[in-house]
């Protein structure tokens, strides 16, 4: 599992509330990614990080922000959750080449 954990694993929240998901890795990887996975779509990149305090947007970044204050943690924040953000969120790290390894996911439901 490449030493990746995600928390929480499941969360139900109400529309308009802020939500923060955490990704933690133990192997000092430089690159980290946040994806969402929805039926009918492939994994879609939300944001990624290429180092501490270095982040960039992916293809579906609207409504999301990220922070990386230390190598091992990459946080994804939904500033004001909406029902369209109900999804399964995966964190990933880049290995030694272009490959990525994924965490177990967080299932988020916005009611």
């Amino acid at each position, binding site marked *: *599992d490449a030493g990746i954990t995600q928390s929480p694993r499941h969360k139900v929240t109400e529309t308009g509330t802020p939500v923060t998901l955490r990704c933690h890795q133990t192997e000092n990887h430089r*690159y980290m*990614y946040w994806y969402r*996975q*929805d*039926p*009918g*779509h*492939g*994994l*879609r*990149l939300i944001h*990624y990080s*290429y180092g501490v305090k*270095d982040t*960039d947007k*992916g293809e579906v970044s609207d409504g999301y922000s990220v922070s990386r204050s230390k190598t091992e943690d990459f946080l994804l924040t939904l500033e004001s959750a909406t029902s369209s953000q*109900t999804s*399964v969120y*995966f964190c990933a790290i*880049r290995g030694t*080449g*272009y*490959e*990525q*390894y*994924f*965490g*177990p*996911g967080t*299932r988020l*439901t916005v009611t």
Partner: protein
Amino acid sequence: GESVGLHLPTLSVQEGDNSIINCAYSNSASDYFIWYKQESGKGPQFIIDIRSNMDKRQGQRVTVLLNKTVKHLSLQIAATQPGDSAVYFCAENYGNSGGSNYKLTFGKGTLLTVNP
């Protein structure tokens, strides 16, 4: 929530048969490809990768074939087992090098069901 396996192409095989899962990729400049396996309720799991300077690569019970002419990738699983039941999807890298460009683009996947 709704399973990611719904709305996907499906392949149903008998245990012991060989399986072939296909993927059409989008960018002729892509130079690196990966196959992932995703079991229900779990994160995607790396299976095998291939670079564009290769046509074929073999792993344990799996073989990936790359046809750059028609931008097609396939995953062959030999002697398919019930534990192989999962969604399989491909990913491609556009060949950007260095900097902040280690990004992958993912296909939607195929649901493989292995019947005992």
